[in-house]
């Protein structure tokens, strides 16, 4: 891996200037490397971070079944990584103009990484440097352990088994809380406190706004601190139990277990046993896996937006760049490969790019306003154009504040239907044709709502697992994990391995019972077959709530609840 040559670097610096003029914002220093195929093979499993820790599984071809899911929040084979300075990768055989185009795409990504609020926690530190020091630390530990070094790999394995459950949103919440205005009490008042009162007494929105206005008014009149104090006095008068509830809230916040990692680090009898000579390094390794996972969380949740954003900018900027001269037709050809929606299948670049352009266009025409939304007539809607020029600004705002889910659900149903119609998108259904022994793809629905639902269902979403402290107490076990059912079941065959790992981390040689409560469906083979052939077929199935218990490497499954569901 070597740095690109000066000549190419110069061209790229020009591209940087042009993109900054267009409004993109990013740190001025970036690093660009030429990579060979060999480099890519080694970098891929390490999610393109050259300094990521060594782990034997990286050396094998890791298989994730096509139908199942992406195991890791990862971006193997991305062109650019979220480090400080941002690092990107290039092929040394490319002509200048192509490298320029790719670089515009890269700059789009860098701008996104460095401005989107979902990446906030990755900004304070250079991940590449951190990964390197983590890697060295792990190497040192391996050396120290000598013959027993394989235990480091076991701990890595068990920690990685739960790293998709890391408390990403909790981390963001903490960061945002620190920045927001007002003391803890004010935050609590306008947050949980009033929310609970609303739910109980049904106070409406306007009353809430009144209180906000009152608080602002006082702060304006008397100064921030004094104003707050006065306001809180008024609150106490109205709700005498406020202070007591606030104290309780504070205690609950402190006692919150955090994610599974944190829980284990704090509470695992094994890891906190004084006699455990290995505890010190085990905790370190677990922390490293957790930090690494946290770093990558935002990327997978903003994949669609990020790709669309980068595509938008490489399209708009490169067209205006003089380097395109003489290569327009070639560019058109290769770009179409990226930008064309396939007949069947989803191209995130294309979809997102078109969505952003659509939003920009709508914003420019003033169609994202309440005024427009109220108009019913088709012709009137079509002709509506206030020429606000606000399109770009809206896009930049979205880029700062939105992730994939927010972006997809941003437009109103009518607007989204418009979007789907314009690009002739449809929900493709899949079914088996037994006579021809093929899988058929057919037009299932052209409704915007259905399309949006399909997109929402495809978004990355790790299972929602909470730790039930009480259950743990009653069973005097190591862990009680509750998988909150949100519509999809867990992949069964992975459960034993994950629980075995947890059993080791919690109990070591003195294993503690690890329980996982989840939902499963009981469905006959025949029904499975019928469902595959006909997507409209409604099977008879039983919804079961089951508890898996892993104790001393033995897994048992107990049904605790059933619900028969029929057509």
């Amino acid at each position, binding site marked *: 891996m070597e740095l690109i040559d000066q000549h190419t670097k110069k061209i790229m610096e020009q591209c940087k200037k042009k993109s900054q003029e267009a409004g993109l914002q990013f740190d001025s220093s970036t690093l660009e490397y030429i990579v060979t195929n060999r480099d*890519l*093979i080694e970098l*891929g499993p390490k999610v393109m971070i050259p300094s990521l820790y060594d782990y*034997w599984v990286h*050396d*094998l*071809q*890791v*298989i*994730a079944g*096509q139908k*199942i899911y*992406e*195991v890791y929040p990862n971006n193997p*084979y991305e*062109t650019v990584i979220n480090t400080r300075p941002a690092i990107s990768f290039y092929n040394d*055989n*490319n*002509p*200048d103009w*192509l490298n320029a185009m790719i670089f515009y795409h890269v700059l789009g990504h860098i701008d996104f990484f460095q401005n989107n609020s979902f990446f906030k926690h990755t900004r304070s530190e250079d991940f590449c440097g951190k990964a390197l020091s983590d890697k060295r630390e792990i190497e040192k530990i391996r050396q120290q352990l000598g013959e027993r070094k*394989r235990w480091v790999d076991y701990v890595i394995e068990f920690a990685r088994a*739960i790293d998709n459950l890391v408390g990403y949103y909790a981390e963001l919440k903490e960061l945002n809380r620190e920045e927001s205005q007002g003391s803890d009490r004010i935050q609590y008042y306008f947050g949980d406190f009033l929310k609970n009162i609303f739910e109980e007494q049904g106070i409406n929105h306007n009353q809430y706004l009144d209180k906000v206005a009152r608080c602002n008014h006082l702060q304006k009149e008397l100064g921030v601190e004094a104003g707050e104090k006065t306001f809180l006095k008024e609150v106490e008068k109205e709700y005498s139990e406020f202070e007591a509830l606030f104290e309780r809230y504070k205690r609950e916040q402190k006692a919150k277990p955090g994610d599974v990692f944190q829980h284990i680090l704090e509470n695992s009898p094994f890891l906190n046993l004084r006699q455990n000579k290995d505890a010190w390094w085990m905790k370190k390794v677990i922390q490293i896996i957790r930090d690494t996972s946290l770093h990558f969380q935002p990327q997978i949740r903003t994949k669609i937006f990020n790709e669309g954003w980068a595509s938008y900018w490489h399209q708009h900027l490169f067209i205006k760049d003089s380097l395109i001269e003489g290569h327009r037709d070639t560019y058109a*050809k290769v770009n179409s490969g*990226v930008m064309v929606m396939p*007949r*069947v*299948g*989803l*191209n995130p*670049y294309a979809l997102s790019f078109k969505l952003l352009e659509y939003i920009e266009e709508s914003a420019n025409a003033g169609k994202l306003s309440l005024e427009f939304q109220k108009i019913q007539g088709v012709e009137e809607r079509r002709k509506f154009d206030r020429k606000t020029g606000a399109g770009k600004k809206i896009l930049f705002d979205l880029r700062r504040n939105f992730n994939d889910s927010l972006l997809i659900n941003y437009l109103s149903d009518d607007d989204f239907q418009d979007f789907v119609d314009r*690009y002739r*998108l*449809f*929900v*493709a259904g*899949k079914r088996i044709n*037994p006579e021809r*022994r*093929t*899988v*058929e*793809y057919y*037009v299932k629905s052209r409704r915007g709502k259905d399309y949006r639902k*399909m997109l929402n269902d495809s978004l*990355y979403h790790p*299972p929602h697992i909470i730790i039930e402290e009480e259950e743990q107490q009653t069973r005097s076990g190591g862990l009680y994990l509750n998988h909150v059912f949100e519509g*999809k*079941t*867990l*992949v069964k065959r*992975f*459960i*034993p*391995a994950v629980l*075995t790992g947890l059993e080791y981390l919690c109990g070591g040689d003195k294993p503690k019972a690890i329980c996982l409560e989840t939902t499963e*469906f009981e469905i006959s*083979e025949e029904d499975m077959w019928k469902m595959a052939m006909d997507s409209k077929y409604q*099977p008879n199935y039983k919804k079961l709530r089951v508890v898996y218990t892993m104790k001393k490497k033995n897994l048992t499954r107990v049904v605790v609840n059933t619900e028969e*569901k029929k057509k």
Partner: protein
Amino acid sequence: MTTENENKYLTAADKQGEGLIVLRGAKNASFERGIYNAYDLIDLPGFTPPRLPVAMMETLDQLRERDGQREKDGFHKKIKFRHAAGKNGAVIVVPTTEEEQLVHGQFEPGGGGQGSGQGEGEDGEVVGEQQIDPGEGEGEGEDNQAGEGGGGDHGVGSDTYEIGKKLTEELKLPNLEDKGKKVPTDEYIFDLTDRHRKSGQILDHKETMRQIIKTNLILGKLDRKNPETDKFIVGPDDKVFRVLSREKVYKSMAIVFFMRDYSGSMWGIPTEAIIEQHLIIYSWLMYQYEKLVIPRFIVHDAEAKEVDWNTYYKSIIAGGTRIASGYKLINEIINKEGLERDYNLYVFQGTDGEDWDSDGKEPLAALEELVPKLQRMGASVIRNSWNKKNMTDFEQYLQKSGFQKKATKFRLVSINADTVTPEKNIEAVKTLIGP
């Protein structure tokens, strides 16, 4: 430089729809392409996606050792060693693993099974179609490396013979004692088996002694009761020598017919299991016959045809099944080419047991003709889920006719498709080739 490179990546870009290797197993890139298997380095022009890793940091042996150590430490084995078909008749070993996590699967009643599409089309109109791949099984299937176009050689290229040797040792597969027929080959060795009197390379003391005693007996020089060896006359003719002579080498050669049903009902796990078993058997035979094994491949649905290595591993056709067609073709080939005389013949068959000819008259007749010519015949039945509880057509007519009892060289083994594991495959192989 510019134009040349432009052409280069243009070709790569043109190939975008055509079987780009995308790491996370999204084989059918254009159909199943989704949000999370789009990568800049693969989708943007100017890059060639890397081939899947061939070089590994650890050798296969080291990996096996690591896996073995896992068991000793009390954890489950994690590395699967699958056999795949490489180029030109090679068998390769592909080590794979999975990283287990608590993650959502696809199943949700009333949901799932849909994606995105673009373009023209009425509601319900079919817009795309795809052959069901051998790699796609019922439920959550794993990637089948052998099915990959152009990516077949991404395992570790061990010699098939070596694999056979390893398998025989590790799995304790039987060694063939009597390999039966031997055929003269074109090879010669020089051997000291012939004898020649008067002159030669090495003196055969015993024979020479015999001759001397004979001669001296005739001459009356030998007194049986009191032999005086120093009074013996040794004539030049008495000396018997061993001489180097050129001998033809006789070797046992085997021809193995791999026959499988490739009709529509075989898609998924049945085909995978059969292929795995056949690869193991082939490697084992290579070792046993010291590489002198000629594999021949027969696929059949309602008709049979002989195919090459590649086609055997990848084909799936939609159609019905007549097992007899395969047997008949094998019989034909054996008769036409006169193979029975010189070669040790083996037939290994894979099927899901379904047969249009449900009373079995034709296949049984063909088997009666075929099996006596063979050293061994093995049949693997991988029962599809709808046959789980009953016997398949094939098994039924075999049992009814009592053929299995009569034919000692015939072995049958059945596994249910939903319980196939590498261990079960190995057990099946052992039954098929064992004593």
